């Protein structure tokens, strides 16, 4: 090995020197999903010039939000070794309920709140009752709820679709912040991200954790790159409301997992449920909370979808559970529990929508799209298993 100098605080002298190169390669290895996302975007951009346009990127971001919001909740569920298959049907049910409520003259915001409570919290409580109290495997319970919720949606709507007339409701899923406001917001957010990376470094140094400067530069560069792409994308019409909602939810989710009592307990439960119980974690309460969070997020996703489409059909959200689970798994959350991040899931969700969007642009027939998507999910899990084996 050419350079075995100790790790801290060396001025980076040229990025292509061995140390920098190695940090870069390590970054590639540790951030496989991010690299895959960038590579995919790059390939599609070369292939079809319509891909890397502000208009298409804006669309792509909007398409990601619905499944992305569900996937944030799904991350928590999968970390604790659970699963929720009912999310797709809840999207359909929530869309029907909120539109029907408005049709019957209920105020928009009241309709949204009632929908969140009825199709989100209430169904979550029901699922959790069986899972946490009667110890029925979540796969079975939520499989049942998947059919039940779809059935209720079909019954309520009589199998037909429900239109929305109120223009304000359409704004939730279809509106934009102006380009000016979006630019300021994006700049502020990315400035904060860079600042927090710097602060983390300072803290880590304070605790004696060694940090490679080159690694830091790499993360900094990636952050700047992401910021640039986001600014470019939203130069089309600005930041879409649903994307902003997704960003806020993802941020809260990520912060909760990394920096709160609740998050620590989730990881502990996923790592070893019995040890967690004997450490004083109330497993039941945790499960109730988590299964309510995911159903509520799914209900929110359903409301947003109804808003974007200006109407609802009972079949909305069909197979969304699979996309959400795929996003979580591609994002590196382990099916054996205890491991996973929201940022990984967000990247996973974007990979799925880049694939969907790119393949549609290239006019890949839908049938092939399904095959390719399935293959990629298998690849991602194989990669996960492989990297775990290596770690021993």
């Amino acid at each position: 090995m050419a350079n075995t100098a100790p790790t801290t605080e060396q001025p980076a002298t040229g990025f292509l020197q061995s140390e920098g190169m190695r940090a870069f390669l390590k970054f590639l290895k540790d951030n496989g999903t991010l690299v895959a996302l960038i590579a995919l975007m790059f390939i599609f951009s070369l292939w079809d010039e319509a891909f890397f346009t502000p208009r298409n990127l804006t669309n792509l971001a909007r398409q990601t939000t619905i499944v992305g919001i569900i996937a944030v909740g799904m991350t928590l569920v999968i970390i604790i070794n659970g699963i929720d298959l009912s999310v797709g049907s809840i999207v359909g049910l929530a869309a029907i309920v909120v539109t029907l409520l408005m049709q019957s003259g209920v105020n928009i915001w009241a309709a949204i709140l009632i929908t969140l409570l009825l199709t989100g919290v209430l169904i979550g409580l029901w699922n959790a009752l069986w899972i946490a109290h009667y110890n029925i495997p979540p796969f079975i319970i939520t499989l049942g709820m998947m059919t039940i919720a779809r059935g209720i949606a079909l019954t309520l709507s009589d199998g037909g679709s429900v239109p929305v007339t109120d223009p304000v409701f359409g704004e939730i899923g279809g509106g934009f912040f102006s380009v000016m406001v979006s630019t300021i917001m994006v700049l502020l957010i990315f400035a904060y991200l860079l600042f927090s990376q710097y602060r983390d470094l300072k803290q880590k140094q304070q605790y004696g954790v060694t940090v490679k400067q080159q690694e830091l530069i790499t993360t900094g560069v990636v952050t700047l790159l992401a910021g640039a792409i986001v600014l470019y994308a939203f130069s089309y019409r600005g930041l879409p409301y649903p994307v902003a909602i997704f960003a806020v939810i993802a941020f809260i989710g990520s912060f909760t997992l990394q920096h709160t009592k609740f998050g620590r307990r989730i990881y502990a439960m996923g790592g070893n449920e019995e040890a967690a119980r004997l450490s004083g974690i109330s497993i039941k309460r945790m499960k109730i909370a988590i299964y309510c969070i995911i159903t509520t997020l799914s209900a929110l996703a359903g409301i947003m979808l109804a808003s974007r489409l200006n109407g609802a059909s009972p079949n909305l959200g069909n197979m969304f559970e699979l996309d959400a689970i795929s996003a979580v798994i591609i994002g590196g959350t382990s099916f054996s529990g205890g491991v996973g991040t929201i940022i990984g899931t967000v990247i996973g969700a974007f990979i799925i929508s880049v694939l969907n969007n790119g393949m549609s642009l290239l006019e890949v027939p839908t049938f092939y799209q399904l095959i390719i998507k399935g293959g990629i999910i298998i690849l991602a899990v194989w990669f996960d298993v492989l990297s775990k084996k290596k770690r021993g």
Partner: protein
Amino acid sequence: MGEVVLEMKNIIKDFPGVRALNDVNFEARSGELLALMGENGAGKSTLMKVLSGVWPYPSYQGDIYLRGELKRFYNTKEAEAAGIAIIYQELNLIPDLTVAENIFLDRQMTNAFGAINWGKLFAETQRLLDELNITDFKPTDKVKDLTVGKQQLVEIAKALSKKADVLVFDEPTSALTDKEVAALFEIIRKLKRQGVCMSYISHKMEELQQIADRVVVLRDGKTIGDVTPIAEITLDQLISRMVGRDVKDMFPKGQFQRGEKVLEVKNFDIDNPDLPGQKKVKNACFCAYKGEILGISGLMGSGRTELVSGIFGAPPGPAHGEIYLDDKLVRFRSPHAAIEHGIGLVTEDRKRIGLILGQSIIQNMMISSLETVTNVLGIINQAKERNLAQDYVKRLSIKTPGLDVKIDTLSGGNQQKVILAKWLNIKPKVLILDEPTRGIDVGAKVEIYNLLNKLVEEGVTVIIISSELPEVMGISDRILVMCEGEIVAELTREQATKELIMAYATGSQK
């Protein structure tokens, strides 16, 4: 004296942060029983895992010779094929299958269509049992209906059916009744006559004097002295080889003033969920005081673990009875409630239900007391958390490269210290420890004893379960002895002798 069958030379095995085996040398001969002695954590189990291919070549250093031939096992199958069989403490039988199916698991005689030839299977098993003079059970009995002792015989029959000629017993009698032990010894004697080479891991001196031919001692991963015929060594010599130091230094004992009653357990029962009508704990009554260490002794399966789990709000079956904490009647429906009242439990099975493997030291350390480092919104104050964790690392001298490394990478002793830190941070009133020094090196043990003494001085009530008599006698102020779910004796430090405790624990004295 038979020929040398098994020889292990200069065996060294490292784990992250600890050298488990450090130059082990011995040889075992055919037709003899070689006793392998040593305290818990001396490296006996690791040695057996090297021999059986669980730790494959080249994860260790040194050579294994079988009948003079250098052997390198890359997996357990190869070791098995070479004729090595290990009968572990924890039996590896499938409860719902018959004796015959267990013995010939994966090797059942089949006909041309791959269907099992049941007649032949049972006949062959019966022949094997006859050979061993086993008449207590039939090939068609289900394993789950047999006692642990009989299950052990099934394991032996299984090993012999594989034509094993090197048999290793890992503490085989720890869960057996006297009668079952006698039956086992009868079979061992028979195997000796047949020329089988056997090794026997145990702490029980009396047993070894009955059955062993030669003895070798393992301490801190090293073989101490040569292989010695059992007739040529005294008990004291054996103990000094095993402990390597004066027992007094091994168990530092603080002098405390016993304070007020903290915990009182009255008429505490735990039903056995698997066997209706039976009880895991019967009518337990005892008190624990401030400023004392209360020891609980008893054989494996005597209900010790169940009793303390029950107090901690995690009983293995429905529990009845009364628990008073500071003279107030309490009822813990979950460990969560027990912890809120200041009770901590260091569990027996560290890997399975103690640690959260795959997660960091700081995550493991803080998981029971996150309230101490969070604000009202439940947000963790990282600086505060790290400082607190760092304090524990220093105070308990936990050897670790950092707070963020996975707990898996630490040695057993350091893992246990992290768990102790976890419980110290709940500021316990009563700290219960179930076999806290199992699988821990001697140095860390002494540190843990010192820590317990200090806790008692600070006013914590400590209850400790231990299978090791010197340990429980060395550090307790009072000792409860359990037998078959009942507390059969309460002995003061002065009254307690090994013989007396064993007599109560085995039920021979009531």
